[in-house]
């Protein structure tokens, strides 16, 4: 399985190298903020990558994916508030709760297709949002401050900027590797087969929905991990992170970067969040630029940025 050398793979390789070397650049120039910015970007990239697993490969367009960011974050935040600071407890809880939530809403939502699926996932995420807003013990809608980052018994110090960045990056690469393995496994091929022709896969004897559900749960769990990272990164978790506009942001990152391409969501997250940050420094009317850019990408760059790069070599 030697990857072909083409423009999109070259960009992916270059991007990974740049991400790995970023702390060196940051230390050399004294620019700490770029590291802070990219820590957030890698976390969103992980969330977007997990959405890509169900959306790009599984054909399940979830409009409620940000719910797991909140659930993973609240698992960390609530445990921390109750005096359980150990990451060895917090993080597994975050993953398990995210998986259970995904299992529940997946089992119900997968009865529907297409736009109905989009809307039912949205509905569940909105319910999660309102439940979190009602948790007055944990700050309600003001959110919950996480006073101490997860404690991994000296193994790794999450309060150290570089260590935390590399942890996020490792989670991102780990997540991508897992997704790559899944996509190329027999299981992944079935899921992709179901996307392109459900009836045929059913006829061959696969329980299409069971495969979809497992895939949905895996994606939710990975995104729950991103949520745990995000809570540690912001030292804060609030219902706002689950609001439907945030799910929309994740969707935009995936489509922008390129659905169904392994590195697409990473590129999408980097470009989207950087554009947002850079444009906000030049103008307060960033939508006047960002909006048409999105429209043009859809019109002229099918398959997002990675799709565009993929075509560059073919001419």
């Amino acid at each position, binding site marked *: 399985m030697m990857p072909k050398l083409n423009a999109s793979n070259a960009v992916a390789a270059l991007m990974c190298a740049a991400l790995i070397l970023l702390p060196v650049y940051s230390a050399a120039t004294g620019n700490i903020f770029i590291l802070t910015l990219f820590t957030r970007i890698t976390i969103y990239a992980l969330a977007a990558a997990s959405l890509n697993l169900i959306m790009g490969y599984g054909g399940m367009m979830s409009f409620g994916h940000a719910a797991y960011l909140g659930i993973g974050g609240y698992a960390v935040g609530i445990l921390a508030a109750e005096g359980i600071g150990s990451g060895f407890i917090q993080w597994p809880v975050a993953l398990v709760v995210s998986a259970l939530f995904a299992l529940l809403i997946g089992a119900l939502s997968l009865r529907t297709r297409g736009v109905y699926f989009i809307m*039912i996932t949205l509905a569940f995420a909105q319910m999660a949002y*309102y439940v979190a807003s009602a948790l007055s013990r944990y700050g309600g809608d003001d959110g919950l401050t996480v006073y101490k980052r997860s404690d991994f018994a000296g193994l790794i110090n999450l309060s150290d900027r570089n260590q935390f960045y590399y942890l996020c990056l490792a989670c991102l690469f780990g997540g991508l590797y897992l997704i790559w393995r899944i996509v190329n496994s027999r299981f992944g091929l079935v899921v992709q087969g179901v996307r392109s022709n459900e009836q045929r896969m059913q006829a061959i004897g696969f329980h299409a929905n069971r495969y979809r559900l497992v895939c949905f749960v895996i994606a939710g769990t990975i995104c729950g991990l991103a949520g745990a990272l995000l809570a540690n990164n912001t030292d804060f978790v609030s219902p706002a992170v689950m609001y439907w506009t945030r799910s929309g942001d994740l969707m935009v990152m995936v*489509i922008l970067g390129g659905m169904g391409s392994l590195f697409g969501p990473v590129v999408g997250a980097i470009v989207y969040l950087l554009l947002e940050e850079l444009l906000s420094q030049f103008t307060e009317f960033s*939508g006047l630029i960002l909006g048409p850019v999105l429209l043009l990408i859809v019109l002229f760059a099918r398959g997002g940025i990675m799709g565009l790069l993929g075509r560059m070599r073919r001419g």
Partner: protein
Amino acid sequence: MYLVVEQLLNGLQFGLLLFLLAAGLTLVFGIMDFVNLAHGSLYMMGAYFAATFVAWTGSFVLGALMALGATLLLGIVLEYVALRHLYGRGHLDQVLATFGLILFFNDAVRLIWGPAGLALPLPAWLTVPVQIIPGVYYPAYRLMIIAVALAVAAMLYLVVMRTRVGMLIRAGASNREMIGALGINIKLLFTLVFGLGAALAGLAGLMQAPILTVQIGMGENILILAFVIIVIGGIGSIRGAFMAAIFVGIIDTMGRAFLPDLLRKVLSGAAASTAAPALSSMLIYLLMAIILVLRPEGLFPAAKR
């Protein structure tokens, strides 16, 4: 008893308001298979146009009519320049492109009209409460919304069910290839339908403006409600949208009106006062989830494609 009647009326009126927005959305969705998130932006533009034109002309009715024309025109231009190239693309491409349009319109409006929003005051004859049954007063303007929305529903029904264009629209909603085979100028039909959808969004926006506000981003939260309605009703079905809108309006209003008291009877005071607002906030989503679990294609699915 009066209380229940009045709350039912509140719910009916709110539902009809939502129907105005949902009708255009489900029309465009059903016929062109086009997910238009920018429907909320057209709704916003309708309100901004109305506030501007009413201030210019000094007449509510005249300004409203001009605003309707302006949104119709805007819709047609938008379709012609950009959106027609997106028909036949995946829903997600459409979502991304029209999400971009939302960003664009929000900032364009902020640039042109400023961030402060506008006021659309009612003429004096619409501000007086009307006595509907002895002892129960109801805002005149809300009664007008009910009348206008019912008229629009009747008109849409007549157009869709009784005219040649309507026949094509119905044909398009159930089988897109067929109208092509009939030798109809599909491009023109689509442009017209999109324009109609835009005008309906504009109408919804300008009708709501005096009750709500004319604000940037006013289309986004309500757009989600409109999507909930067309999904509950079954995509492409005007009848479904009508029933679902009234259903959602009444459930939402009645939930807010009576749920807290009901819960207080069942739960302890403190628990009820936390649970009630949260529950009535998510009532609509809960309703949609339950309906979709039981009826995965909505209550009134349009004929199979």
